[in-house]
Structure formats: C-alpha cells, structure tokens
C-alpha cells in the first residue's frame, strides 16, 4: 500500500438543509485497495458517496482526489477525472436501451475505438447484457440492472469506483457473482474501490480495510480481517 491516499476526506460535514447527515467524516482510500464502509440504515453511507461525487455539497471540510481539492468541482466534471459512482438502487435510465445506457457511461469520451473496445469488454464480462442490448433498461431484472450499472460505470474508465449497496435486493447467487466481478475489476484494472454495504459480512470479506459509520460519524477504522473478528462489530452488524 503506497503512502499517498488517492482519495481523502477531512472532517467533512454535509447534509440536506437542516438535516445534518455527516458530522465530521475523515477517511482515506489508497490506490488499488478495496475499502468497505459499513453502517446501519440511515448512518450516512450514501450521503458520504454523494458528497464525494459533488451531488451533495459539504458544509464544512475538504475532499482531496489525487492530491487535488475537489469540493467545489461540479459533479459532472468528476467522472472524466476518474471518479465514478454506482449509486444505491442502480439508477439505470429506464427508458433508454441497455446499449444507450452503456454509451452514456462513455458520454465524456471521444475515443471511438476505445469506446468500442470497452463495449466489447463489458459485454464479455456480462454476456447477458449483449443479449439484451436493444431492450429498455427498465425492463431488466434487478440482477441484470446491477450488472448494467457496473458495466456503465466501467465505460467511464474509473480510477476510483464508489459502489453503493451493490447487493441490495439481489438473490444470494447473483450477489456472489457480482462480488466476484467487483474483485476482478479491482485486480485486473487496478481500480480503487469503495464499497458501501449493509451486508457487512460480504463487504468485509471482499475488502482489505473498512470504516464503520454511525449516525454521521466514523466510529471505527481497521483491517477488514480485524473488523470481521471484532466482537462489537459481530454483534452490531453481523447478527450475532
């Protein structure tokens, strides 16, 4: 693990008007790692990711990406810099076809040949998407939508990929294959992954490090291994 974090939050406060969802979050993600953020429903996990991506604006604190402060950068300028999110609920464009959803993943790109090549690549990762390429996104099953959301994110060429509850609402067998692919993406393209999950067990088995978020604050930071073996964590998040 190299010393310089690729993404760093310093005492970030943010929320929705009078609702303060984050009350001073500090965290670091290092290049090439899989980082898990676990926490109960409403802890502020999604808000953390949306604040990093410029959708929710921090009231206070700083966010650094590759050493550059990105608090003030408009959301749509971040994906071209390699910062990319698959949001909670996947948010497929329902009335666009599968192929159109993928093309929009590459919206900012102009390298025709590269886009075609990446399209082939994601179709080989998810053959089902190729079969359904002309179908509307909204007609896909939950698992297929999650695959499409991941594939669309890959079309953006992410260096840091934020995943918000990729297992939500999916059958266990599909969850397993999605997580295998997440691990592959991390390994093969050296993409840093921040994995937000309520399914703490799964997240910590996939990640190298983890943070625990409780009502807008980080309460614990450790190796994934140690968190998995932490008695308090097991009690609170792993159902023991």
């Amino acid at each position, binding site marked *: 693990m190299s010393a310089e974090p690729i993404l760093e939050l310093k005492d970030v406060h943010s929320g929705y008007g009078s609702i303060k969802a984050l009350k001073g979050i500090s965290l670091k993600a290092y290049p090439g790692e899989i980082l898990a953020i676990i926490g109960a429903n409403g802890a502020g996990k999604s808000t953390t990711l949306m604040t990093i991506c410029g959708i929710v604006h921090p009231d206070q604190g700083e966010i650094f990406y590759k050493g550059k402060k990105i608090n003030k950068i408009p959301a749509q300028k971040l994906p*071209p810099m390699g910062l990319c999110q698959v*949001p909670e609920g996947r*948010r497929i*464009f329902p009335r*666009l076809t599968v192929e*159109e959803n993928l093309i929009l993943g590459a*919206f900012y790109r102009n390298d025709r040949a590269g886009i075609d090549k990446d399209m082939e690549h994601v179709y080989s990762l998810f053959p089902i998407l190729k079969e359904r390429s002309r179908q509307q996104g909204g007609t896909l099953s939950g698992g297929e939508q999650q695959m499409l959301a991941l594939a669309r994110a890959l079309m953006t060429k992410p260096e840091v990929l934020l995943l918000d509850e990729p297992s939500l609402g999916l059958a266990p067998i599909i969850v397993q294959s999605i997580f295998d692919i997440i691990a592959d993406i991390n390994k093969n393209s050296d993409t840093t992954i921040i994995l937000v999950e309520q399914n703490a067990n799964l997240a910590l088995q996939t990640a190298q490090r983890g943070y625990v978020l409780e009502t807008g604050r980080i309460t614990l930071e450790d190796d994934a291994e140690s968190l998995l073996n932490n008695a308090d964590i097991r009690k609170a998040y792993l159902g023991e």
Partner: protein
Amino acid sequence: MDYFIQQLVNGLTLGGLYALIALGYTMVYGVIFLINFAHGEFFTAGGYIGVIALSYCIAHGYTQTHPFLCLAGAFSLAMIYSAYLAVGVEKIAYLPLRGSRLAVLLSALGMSIFLQNGMMLTQGVMDKAYPGELFEGGFSFGMVTISYLQIMIITMTVLLLFGLNRLVYKTKIGMAMRATAQDKTMSALVAIGSNNIISLTFAIGAGLAAAAGVMVGLYYGSVHYDMGFNLGMKAFCAAVLGGIGNITGAMLGGLIIGLVEVFGAGYISGQYKDVFAFIILIGVLYYRPTGIMGENIDETRV
C-alpha cells in the same frame, strides 16, 4: 370529395405548424416539468425576425436575385434569435428559481407578459405585413388547390420533425437529453451537465417555434405582437392531447388539433373554429387523463 381533400391539405398544413410549436412545450416539460408560458412569445419573435429579414431582402431587391437564400436567411435568423432568446430567458428567469416549481411557473407567466409588451413597444400594435410575392400560385387538381406556400410549409415541417427525431433518438446528445429528463442526478454521475442540456432543450424548442412563426407569417400574411397567445394555447393543447413530455405525442396532437380545427370550421361553423381544439382536448382527457401517448409509459417520452 374535392372539398374534403382541400380541407385535408389545409388541416395538415396548420397541424404541422401546431406540432412544431407543441414540441417546445413538451420538451421543456419533459426535462424540467415546467409549462413554459413564454414559449408562444418565442414563436412570435421568430415571426417578427422573419418579416424584418424578408423586408430587408425585398428593399434591396435580393428576393429577385436570390429568393432561396433570402428565405433560408430569414428562417435561420429567426430560429437562431429565438433560440438565444429562450436560453437567455431560461438563465435569467427560470434557472435561479428552479428550487420551486410554482415560482418558475409564475416567472414564466411574467416573462410571457414582459416579452409580449416588449414586442408591442418595439414593433407596434398594428399587424406587420409579410411580403406576399415570394410564393405566388400553386398546383390545381380539379377544385383542389395546393399552393406553393403550403408545399413549402409541409416540406419544411416534415424536414424539421424528421431532423428532431434523428437528433433525439439517434445521437449521443439526444441520449443525454432523454437521460436528463429521466434522472438528473444519475446524468451528472455520467458526466452530463444537466444545465447545458436544459439550455439546449430550450434552444431547440424555441428554434422550432420560430420557424413556425415565419411560416405562420407567410401563411396568414402578417404577424401580430400577441399572436403567440392564441397559437401557443392551441399548441399547448396539442402537447397535452398527445401526452405532455412525449415528443411523438406532440407531433400527433398538433396534427389532430389542426385537422379538427379546419374540418370543424369547414363542415360545422367557422365562427367556432377556436373552440373545436378545446372540445377534443376535454373529450380525450376525460377518457385518457395522460393524453394519447401517456406520460412515463411510452419509450418515446423525452
């Protein structure tokens, strides 16, 4: 039968014009859920720029030497002017208020009055006459006459509608427009700047309306500072009839309203011609509250 065919041609001509205006209402609604009351004024402004440009050409004798160039110039100027006007209105009067739908709606109403008064002050309260000599004559088949002007209007309308369809359904920017209409947060997460797309939507809608403004001026022989109200109202009916937010619906709604109006005037009573559009609208909404193509149901929604 001749009479029927004649009315059909007249109805399609008018319907196409309504369709062009209706698209602006429907596209803007599709992207930011705003009924843009000022849209009729973009149409009127286009009509004025058209007559100013054509009068200039005639004064310099260019219509004799380069008639097509004059016409193309008049259309281009009108469309570009209205497009910029619409983008300006959106940036100044709508964008800062986007947090509240009611505030934007009232602002649109205000902009409509403001622009109408602006045109009255600068262009006068009297009708401004369009030069008629550009399109004299036509084809006659028995009792049916199709004027060259009608042919030009129908051809131009078809080309514009076709072009818009290509843009929205076949290009990356069209995809981005549809994506913005569906989910602005997700659009931002794939690097689409929704403000740019919204501006573009306003520009395209106003450009189409401006083209209709020039054609209406040529067709009826003049423009008037408040003509955007009446025609805008009917085009809005067309958009609602087709299912507001739906592009194909607006085209269909425009044609239906145009045909109903012309046939109603021809076969029932000319005095009630403005009423037929509203009767049809009420009749359809009674059975299909979302309009013919419905909202959020069909894939042709923006």
